[in-house]
């Protein structure tokens, strides 16, 4: 009940913030149409076997979801600077409920991005069976977990004025090396490094259209490992952070 009260409060605050919504929902959508619309009939993007609209639909869901989830860290950093987290610590609100609200809000933003891009993908001719849509969505939801945790970690490590560039740069870099903008192929240095990033597996959710398993066991392991490691660090950062900022 109490955790839901705070989650509801966070959702109201977030979806009332017009600028946040325009930028976090608008950019992936605009990029999608700029890149995918002229190439809507390309069904085998760079030999990946995936159509360009599907490839960029998932790529930009990944981009938008990563931005949305990690940017919950920006809001945490601002709230720390403003002393709001100290105020919350003298309420009965449990840390788990606070994090649930933050992660839930990040996922809600990511979910809206996903719905908008799915609709745009359908408009550009993406066609998948219902089972494939579900499978893809499930993989995206799972691959987003480490980024939700990363947002919390960065929110407690960085200050309000340093987190903006840090998040922007990090998301751009991860998107680039994880194949958001072009397929990485099946070998080479970039491909080998990307294997170890959860963002790579996030982008690979589009492989559901190829039939078979979109993720290898290694993919699940990478996502799980990042989640656990980041969660331990985030917990430590949270517990350490009782001082005035």
């Amino acid at each position, binding site marked *: *009940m*109490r955790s839901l*009260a*705070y989650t*509801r*409060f966070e959702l*109201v*605050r*977030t979806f*009332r*913030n017009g600028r946040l919504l325009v930028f976090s929902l608008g950019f992936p959508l605009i990029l999608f149409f700029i890149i995918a619309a002229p190439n809507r009939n390309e069904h085998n993007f760079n030999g990946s076997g995936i159509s360009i609209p599907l490839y960029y639909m998932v790529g930009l869901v990944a981009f938008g979801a990563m931005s949305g989830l990690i940017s919950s860290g920006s809001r945490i950093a601002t*709230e720390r*600077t*403003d*002393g*709001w987290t*100290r*105020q919350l*610590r*003298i*309420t*009965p*609100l449990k840390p788990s409920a606070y994090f649930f609200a933050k992660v839930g809000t990040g996922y809600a933003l990511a979910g809206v991005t996903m719905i908008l891009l799915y609709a745009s993908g359908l408009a550009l001719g993406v066609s998948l069976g219902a089972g494939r849509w579900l499978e893809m969505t499930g993989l995206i939801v799972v691959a987003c977990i480490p980024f939700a945790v990363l947002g919390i970690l960065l929110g407690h490590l960085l200050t309000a004025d340093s987190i903006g560039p840090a998040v922007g740069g990090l998301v751009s870099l991860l998107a680039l090396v994880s194949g958001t903008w072009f397929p990485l192929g099946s070998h080479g240095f970039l491909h080998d490094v990307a294997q170890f990033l959860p963002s790579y597996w996030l982008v690979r959710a589009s492989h559901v259209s190829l039939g078979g398993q979109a993720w290898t066991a290694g993919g699940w392991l990478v996502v799980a490992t990042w989640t656990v490691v980041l969660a331990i660090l985030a917990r430590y950062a949270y517990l350490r952070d*009782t*001082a*005035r900022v």
Partner: protein
Amino acid sequence: MQIEKAIGVELRGAAKTYRTAGTVVHAVRGIDVSIDRGETVALLGPNGAGKSTTIDMVLGLISPDAGTVSLLGEPPRDAVAGGLVGAVLQTGALIRDVKVRELVAMMAALHPHPLGVDEALELAGLADIADRRTHKLSGGQAQRVRFAIAVVPDPAILILDEPTVGMDVEARRAFWLSVRAFAARGKTVIFATHYLEEADAYADRAILMSRGRVVADGPTTEIRARVGTRTIRATLPDVNASELASLPGVTSADRRGEEIVLICSDSDAAIRALLDSRPDVRDIEIASAGLEDAFIELTTDPDGTSAEAEPQEALV
């Protein structure tokens, strides 16, 4: 049991030391304070005296290195979890993108036995701006919102950390009326302040801190009386403060430009001796000590340096 129930806030030997690269700051050096339920207590002291660290320990935001802190007989974190504590903290901005009423209602929903939202808004004088967004408020209004979220849990203990900094006189008076109205419900109120007149006007009792220690603790009238009963001010260049301090009846002497200030245990003896030794002294004023003099006296070291001159660090 009855006796234990009467204690609102208790610190026993509470100490906190901060260690940062190369420096050690003893923010609080072992203090014993016991505050009864229903008391309104002012926590006074210069910057760096340890007030904020003390408040953070009471709120359970930091743990003491030594000693204990208890609120209604419970550890601070348990008291907080039970909704017994409300606080106006020293902070930058209010959280954005919410209306005043939504913020207060959310805070109420986090607590087990809150006041009604309207009651809290009324108490804080916010009824007419309840539908405004928090980032469109003036400084005084924002501070009243902080007060509303501190009292909406209906806490037994209310802590205010320099709550009226930056308010104008009118806003300050209105704010203290709200605090009084809440304290009248039998609440324990502790506030840290720089404004001595606030301690004088609104507290039953004042606790003076300096350099991490409690240097005086009692009714404000008593603290005033503890100090030299009179202060002599006069214009007298070319004389050492230390020379004046050795005059009979003078407990301490200070120079402020051409002016000298003598705090006296026996001002009659002191003024005779002063006129005998320095007939050129002019513009003499003799006044009974105010709380401010008590404050300066009690927070100043015997060697004459004020605690204020100490290098500060960020956390206290």
